[in-house]
Structures are given as C-alpha cells and as structure tokens.
C-alpha cells in the first residue's frame, strides 16, 4: 500500500473527523516500513481507538513498526485493548508506559508462558457469580485484592507454564478471594452510620506495636481458615491445583496435598529468624491455632485472637518484627478500598432506593402522591438533595411488617401521609439491604423520594423537539452499567419520531436495479409460506375429520343437533412470526453504507409481501441519553404502502449509535405481540457509540444486556453488521451464532432477505 492510499484509508476510517494532514502523515510514517498484514491489523484498530483519543491513536500508529516487531498479528487486538485499558485508568502517560513495555507484554503471553486476564475472564466471570450467588465483577488491577464487592486481578500472569495452568491460577485466585468475601475476612462490622469511614480492622492492626506483624498474623490465620473452607466446599478445585503446589506455595507437598499445611510450612518453617531453643514451642503455638482455625465453627474473631496470642508469643521470644510476603493467590489486604466500596454501595443503594421509590409512587393512582411535597425546587439530574429536615418528615411514619416465616425482617409497606404504600419485591429487598447496613431505613430516603415524585409530576418537557413532529410522549428506559453490574434507573429518554415521507427517485431506481432479484426473492418467499398444518373441525376442507364425524354421529344418536364442522383443512398461514427490523441511522452510515441498507430494506419488504409474517421497520439514532430517537418506518400493523416506501427512501444518516435504548423500546413493542416466533433483526454498521462517555466496553455491555433482556422476554435477536472491525465484539454482544458480518457491502441488499429466510424456516 503506498503512502497516499494509506492516508486516504486513514481518513476514511476516522470520518467524519478531519485531522490535520501533517499529524496524519507523521503518524503513518511509523508504519511505512511495516508489512501489509501488520498495517492492516493496525488500521483495523483505528475506529476503536480514534473516538477515545486522537493523540492516543497517533501515538500507537507512530510506533507501529516498533510494536509490530514484538507482537504476533493475533496479539495486536488484545494489545490494543491493553492500551485502552491503561489509557482509561492512567491517562496518556499510563498508555505510553504500556506501549514502551511491549517486549514484556509479549513475553508473558508468548508460547507457554502465562495468560492474559481477558482470555480467562469470559469463563471466570459467570463462574464467580455462580459461587457468590450475585455479580462479583472481575476487574483488572495493579495487584490482586478484593474490596468485597469486586475482585481485582492482575492483567497478565507472568508465570512459567501452559495457558491452562495460567487459567487455573486465575481460577484459584478468584476462588480464594471469593472465600475471603464469603467468610467475612474483610467485612465491616457494626451497624452505626459512618462505620465505613474507617475500617474496624484498621484499629485492630494499629493496636499492635508492630502493626505489620499483627496484620500478617491475622491474614495468615484467615488464609488458613479460607483454605480449609475451600477444601471443604470445592474439593475438586483443590485437586485441580495440587500439581501447581510449587507456583502457589513455593514448595512440593511432603505427603498428601493440603493447602493449610503447605501455608503453615511456607510461613513458619525454615525461617532463620525463628531459630533458637524456643523454636519448637513457638511452632507448636502457631500450629495449635492453625488447627483451631480449620474447625468448622472458626470465625474471624478466632483469627483475631490467634493473631494476638501468637504475637504475644513472638514478642516474648524477641522475634519481632516478623513479616511475610503475600503468596500469589493471597494478594493484599486493602482496607481503604473496602471502605470506599462500602460507601459507594451505600450511596448507590440510596440513589437507587430514592429513584425506584419515587417512580413507584408515580405509578400509584394520583391521590397517593399528589398530597406529597410538591414545593421542592428543580432538581439536578444526578444529585438527590434531601428536603430540609422536618419539611416532610412529620408527614410520615413508616412501619415494618415481617412475615412470620422469614426470620429476617422485611419492610413490606410504608406509610406516607397516612396512606399505606405497598412496596414491590425489588423495593422491599433494597430496603432490607439498607436497614441491614445502617440499622434502619433512614427517613430522609423516603422523604427524598416523595419530594422527587412530587416534582416529576409537574415537571415541564425539557426537550421540545427540533425536527419532525413527535408521535408519542418520551419513554424512559434503564441503562446497564457493567462496571457496577447494575442498572442506571430511568437513564434514557426515548422518543418515537416521524420521518418525513419525501418523494425521491430512490425507490424507482432500486426497483429497477434489482428487478430480477426481487422476482426471484418473491418466488422463494412464497414457497416459505407453505408451512402446512391441518386444522380440524372446519366447515369445509379437503378431508373428512374422522374424529369430528364420529362425535357428531354420536351426538345425533344421543339426540343432539349434529355439527357441521366435519372437515380437515390444510392451513397455510400458520407461520405466526412477528419481526422488527431495527436499522442504524447513525452518522457513520453516511454514503454507500446507508444506500445499501436502504436497498436491503426495499428488497426485504418486497419479498415479505409474499408472506403473512407481521413485520415492522424502525430506525434509530440520537445523541446522548436524553435524546434517544426511534423512527417508525413501518409499524407492525401498517401495510407496505407508498408512504412506507417514501419513508424508506427518506432515511438519512443522523447522529449517534446508542443502540440499547432502541432495543429496549423494540422489546416493549414486541413483547405483547402474540406469535410463535418473535424476532428482532438489527442492522447496524458497527459499534454502539454515543457522543458522551457511551462507548467501549460500557456501550457494548449495555447493548449485550439489552439483548439478554430481549431473550428473557422470549424475543430472538440477530445482528447483521457491516463493520469489518466488528468480529471481536459482535459475538460477545449477540452470542456467536446470532450475528453475521457482511464484508462486501454490495452483497447486503441480497443477503438480508436471505438471512431472514434462513432464520425463519
């Protein structure tokens, strides 16, 4: 590829941006000596990295040749992920460091040495969720630790061994950290509000004159406890890791493989600092506590006592201070992170509670909330300001009712202004979690919700439309935030907007251009319609319904009027399929992409005329979460009329690709439809992405989640994309068998009806 065509290609990839020519040239110089394959592999990453940061994109490209020298082609994509990850966490400097570190990166993945977190995560994430019974996000971190909400893992394992061994080590790290969470090693005890400001263990460690030793002792005994718990709960895992004894414990087992035993040996035996006449008695003191920590009734107070006792023993023998390097799977105790996570969770619960309760109140018949505080001032989107104390506090009391069966008290209803409000399951569970954390459900939480509900009732329309008359009132959809594994409630505002039906030559041209193909498609589709089914008890038909006949004879013999429904008919309209085509109308579909999409719609619609399948076509675009837009081109009940054709002709690229709210809207449209198969076919030109922070993993995970929701609603989805960079994430988003990548845009118009035919027959 020569320089000029390279430059041209680059501009195409970053369109519609128009970066400085000399910046582009300078950066591309970094690829000038590289071979074709490398250049392609690098350019494939441009559309992903460009929107995140232009400078980062230039930086990577300008060092392309140097980087390429260290990376195998198939490692380029994971390496770029690593770059982005570092950029997001540590800015350009962090990314630069990562780039400079490229020899190391390869060393840890090359051949039989180690594994990357990304390679293990797909398998380990559901695994740990299953262990914990809730989502415990696995996140990349500098080192291994848990804040009790998530588990942070090193990005790469630099070990000598096969990748299967690397995976096992990751798996054991995760399992062990789960044990730490499950057994409450780092749990913040105490219910008083504000307890999370400072971790109780911090005070405990500080009470030791040599606090590092105290900390180490506590973690040692807790590790013994967790290992013996794992031995008990996950015996298979312990068997799996037994060949890895050396990597994990730094030694081979003398007899049977016993992790607590190995830990003891590793930490206490052969330490020169412990040598001396009292060596044996010291060891037996530790050993005694070790054994007690392995008993089923052991808890963390026991480990605290053990730490104090053994510390005393060491002190007496003058062996202080004594410190231990954490083992590979132990990681570090990070009390501040635990506190931060707890506070964050508390705040999230607060926000979630206020948001859900207020929307719950709004769904009640008006009276219930109308009396409530409506005097509150305009509220910012994100902060919930509690009303001044006393403003609405006296207006409410809340009562707690618990069912006889469950020992845990559960809040089932609250009383606001003498009106009893029943809580739904989600709210009462949340209220339960909050009162468990804080000892009670703070009244301010309720008053904020009441205030918020009151304000939303009278809220003005924030976004008068700019183009196209609106069809319906805006709808509110949640958004999935994978980082906290929860929904951002009521996050997106979506409107259905009318697309002006403009007369253009597009339709006529397309019909002429594809005349032959359309005829052929119509024939093919007509054949599909003949899904045959016999319907019984018909007034007329091709065959006699013998059962019905016998019954009628019997009826008439018994003196009843005979039925005339005695025939079986071959019914052909039993496909019972309802499909929505959701079409990307984002800016990136500019030009030939958009044209092909439109042609595909025409071809499909023409062919669909031969079927009785109900189908709808919707376009989507928008900008930012408060202005997601969906354009009905043809609703399910609408005929393929000339208006519809005109609308298809007037499709034009608009703004961004925030796909998930559109999917959620399609779910709400398809869900009530009675059909054997409900299908959502998504036609897009690439990544979900919006103007704001909605991009990268966040956008992909939200879209993926929306597709899960579709599945849960009994709707099948299938994605067709024309983005050549899409392979890496499409499978993840849709599931590997539920998407297809069309490399030749000219094939798209013919392919879409073909895909539809395969999917539904």
């Amino acid at each position, binding site marked *: 590829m020569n320089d000029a065509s390279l430059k041209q290609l680059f501009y195409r990839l970053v369109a519609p941006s128009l970066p400085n020519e000399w910046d582009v040239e300078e950066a591309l110089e970094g690829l000038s000596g590289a071979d074709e394959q490398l250049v392609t592999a690098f350019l494939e990453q441009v559309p992903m990295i460009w929107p995140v940061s232009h400078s980062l994109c230039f930086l990577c490209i300008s060092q392309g040749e140097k980087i390429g020298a260290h990376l195998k082609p198939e490692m380029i994509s994971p390496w770029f992920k690593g770059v982005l990850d570092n950029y997001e966490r540590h800015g350009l400097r962090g990314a630069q460091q990562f780039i400079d570190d490229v020899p190391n990166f390869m060393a840890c993945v090359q051949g039989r040495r180690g594994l990357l977190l990304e390679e293990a995560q*797909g*398998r*380990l*994430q*559901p*695994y740990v*969720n*299953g*262990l*914990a*019974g*809730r*989502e415990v996000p696995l996140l990349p971190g500098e080192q291994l630790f848990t804040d009790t909400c998530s588990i942070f893992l090193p990005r790469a394992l630099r070990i000598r061994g096969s990748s299967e061994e690397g995976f096992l080590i990751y*798996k054991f790290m995760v*399992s062990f950290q789960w044990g730490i969470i499950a057994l409450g090693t780092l749990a913040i005890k105490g219910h008083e509000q504000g307890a999370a400001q400072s971790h109780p263990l911090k005070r405990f460690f500080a009470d030791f004159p040599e606090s590092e030793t105290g900390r180490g002792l506590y973690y040692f005994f807790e590790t013994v406890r967790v290992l013996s718990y794992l031995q008990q*709960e*996950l*015996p*298979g*895992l312990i068997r*799996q890791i037994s060949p890895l004894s050396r990597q994990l414990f730094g030694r081979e087992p003398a007899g049977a493989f016993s992790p607590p035993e190995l830990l003891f040996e590793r930490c206490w035996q052969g330490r020169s600092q412990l040598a001396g006449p009292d060596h044996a008695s010291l060891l037996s003191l530790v050993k005694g506590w070790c054994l007690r920590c392995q008993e089923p009734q052991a808890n963390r107070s026991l480990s605290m006592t053990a730490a104090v006792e053994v510390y005393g023993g060491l002190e007496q023998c003058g062996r202080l201070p004594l410190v231990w390097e954490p083992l590979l799977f132990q990681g570090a105790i990070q009390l501040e992170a635990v506190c931060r996570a707890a506070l964050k969770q508390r705040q999230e619960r607060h926000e979630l509670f206020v948001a859900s309760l207020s929307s719950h109140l709004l769904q009640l018949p008006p009276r219930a909330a109308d009396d409530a505080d409506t005097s509150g001032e305009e509220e910012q989107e994100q902060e919930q300001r509690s009303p001044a104390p006393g403003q609405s506090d006296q207006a409410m009391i809340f009562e707690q009712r618990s069912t006889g*069966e469950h020992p845990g008290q559960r809040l089932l209803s609250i009383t606001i202004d003498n009106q009893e409000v029943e809580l739904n399951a989600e709210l009462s569970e949340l209220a339960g979690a909050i009162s468990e954390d804080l000892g009670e459900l703070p009244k301010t939480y309720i008053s904020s919700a009441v205030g918020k509900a009151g304000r939303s009732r009278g809220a003005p329309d924030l976004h008068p439309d700019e183009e196209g008359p609106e069809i319906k009132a805006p709808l509110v959809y949640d958004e999935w935030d994978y980082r906290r*594994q929860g929904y951002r409630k009521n996050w997106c505002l979506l409107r259905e907007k009318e697309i002006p039906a403009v007369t253009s030559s597009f339709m006529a041209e397309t019909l002429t251009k594809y005349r032959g193909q359309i005829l052929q498609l119509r024939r093919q589709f007509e054949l599909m319609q003949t899904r045959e089914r016999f319907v019984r008890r018909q007034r007329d038909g091709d065959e006699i319904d013998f059962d019905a006949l*016998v*019954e009628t*004879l*019997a*009826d*008439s*013999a*018994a003196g*009843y009027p005979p039925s005339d429904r005695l025939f079986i008919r071959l019914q052909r309209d039993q496909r019972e399929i309802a499909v929505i085509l959701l079409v990307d109308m984002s800016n990136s579909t500019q030009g030939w992409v958009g044209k092909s999409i439109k042609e595909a719609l025409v071809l499909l619609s023409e062919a669909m005329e031969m079927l009785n399948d109900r189908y709808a076509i919707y376009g989507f675009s928008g900008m930012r979460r408060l202005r997601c837009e969906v354009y009905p081109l043809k609703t399910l009940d609408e005929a393929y009329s000339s208006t519809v054709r005109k609308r298809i002709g007037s499709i034009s690229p608009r703004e961004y690709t925030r796909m998930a709210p559109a999917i959620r809207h399609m779910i709400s449209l398809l*869900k*009530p439809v*009675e059909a054997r198969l409900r299908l959502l076919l998504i036609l897009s030109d690439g990544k979900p992405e919006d103007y704001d922070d909605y991009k990268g993993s966040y956008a992909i995970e939200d879209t993926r*989640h929306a597709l*899960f929701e579709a*599945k*849960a*609603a*009994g709707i099948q989805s299938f994605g067709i994309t024309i983005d050549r960079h899409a392979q890496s994430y499409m499978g993840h988003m849709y*599931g*590997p*068998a539920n998407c297809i990548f069309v490399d030749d845009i000219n094939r798209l118009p013919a392919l879409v009806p073909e895909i539809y035919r395969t999917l539904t027959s």
Partner: protein
Amino acid sequence: MQDIEQKIEEHHIREEPYYLPTANELAVSLAAYATGTPILLKGPTGCGKTRFMQYLAWKLKRPLITVSCHDDLSTGDLVGRYLIQAGEAVWHDGPLTMAVRRGAICYLDEIVEARKDTTVVIHPLADDRRELPVEKKGELLVAPPEFMLAVSYNPGYQSVLKDLKPSTRQRFLALDFDYPSLEREAEIVASEAGVESSLARSLVKLARMTRGLKDSGLVEGASTRLLIQAGKLVVQGIPIHSACRVAITQPLSDDPELLAALDEMVRSLF
C-alpha cells in the same frame, strides 16, 4: 359405570409417595381442601409440584387425576364427549368430569399452556359455585366436598402470552414452590437418586450456583429433577464430571462461554 369405577381405582395412590415438605404447603392445602378452595402451585420446573400433589392425594385418600395441558387441549378433552359404541351414542366423561363426579383431585399441570378458551370451563368450578356444566349432556354437576381442583404454573417463563389471567388466578389459593433449603434439597436428591449425602449436597451446591446466573444469560437454573438425574447416572457408574455435564450443564445452555463457566463450577465442586 363399571368402567369409570375401574378407571378411578387406578388413580388411587396406595403407597406413601416420598415427599419432603419445604414450608407449610401441606397445612395450607389441607385447609384449602377442607374449605373447598382450589389451589395454584407456582414454581420453577422440577421443584416438586407434581410430587406434592401425589403426596396430598395419598394423604387425603382421594384419587388423583392429572392432565398435562397443551395448546391443542379442547374443552371436550376435559369435559367429555359422546362416542359410538355398538351403534349407540355413549357418553364418555373427560378427566375433569370424572374427577368432579367421583370426588377426586383434578390437577391441571402447566395450565398456562392451555388455550384461554379451554381454561374458562374451570371458572365456575373454581369459585364458590363449585359446579361444572356438561353442556352436551344438559347436566350441571355440583362438586362434592371431596373434589379438589389444583393447577400449576411456572412463573419463570417470562412470556406475556403465557401468563394466567388475573380473573383466573384470583380464584385460587397460591402456594409458592421455590427450591427448598440446601439441606432439604440434598436430602431429596440423596433419597431419590440413591446417592450419598455428601454427593447430593455438592450437586445441590452446583444447582444453586446455576440459579443465580440470570444476569449472565441463564434464564432458568438447574432443577431438582436434573440433580436427581445426574445422581442416578453416578449410581449407574458414570463418572461425576460427565454425569453433571450430560444431565445438568449441557441441558441448561448452548452458550460456549457460559458452558465453560458451568464446567469450571463442576470441576471445582467435584
């Protein structure tokens, strides 16, 4: 008549079925029986609804007539029809009519699978009228006190199509059949599959791990029934890992990533 007599005999449950109560379902059902109220058994597949009905029928010493509902089930299939025998029209009671006539327990399994126009025939039976009109015979049957109506449904199927109409469900006392506690479920698995209690416990642990994966794409977790199947395979000499794979993880999902994760659970547990 002799015919019916004989048929109904077949529906008596003579031996005590193995059933481990999970909450107060027995007391509630006995009270419902005493007051002539129909019951609705809600719960995921394979959590013991059918088994409970067998146990209840045994306890009450009433025959149990079970109808598995499907979308081709017609009113005639439930109520009955005339058939010709030796040139004469002879009426044959359907299972529902038979149950009403003989004071049996009629259990409509997976009621949501039946078409809505079929389910309306149970309405007059389900409220305090407790009567069944047999239109073709011009007969109005009033259910004796021994008759009981029970229906089951699985709220896990999220399809709106497959939901009970409020007017139907409000006629029933609802019993929530969720999965039992770890200990109880392990006891059930051990007893039904004939495996050791430690293996049964691990199987239940596996099931519980799968039941929390809705957000990871698993709509329904492993049921007690699947665990029993896996246990039985182990008794037949199949190694535990493959037993879990064929009886539990593979039936649950086709997603390769999810299957790999489920497999890691199996390998950790056993």
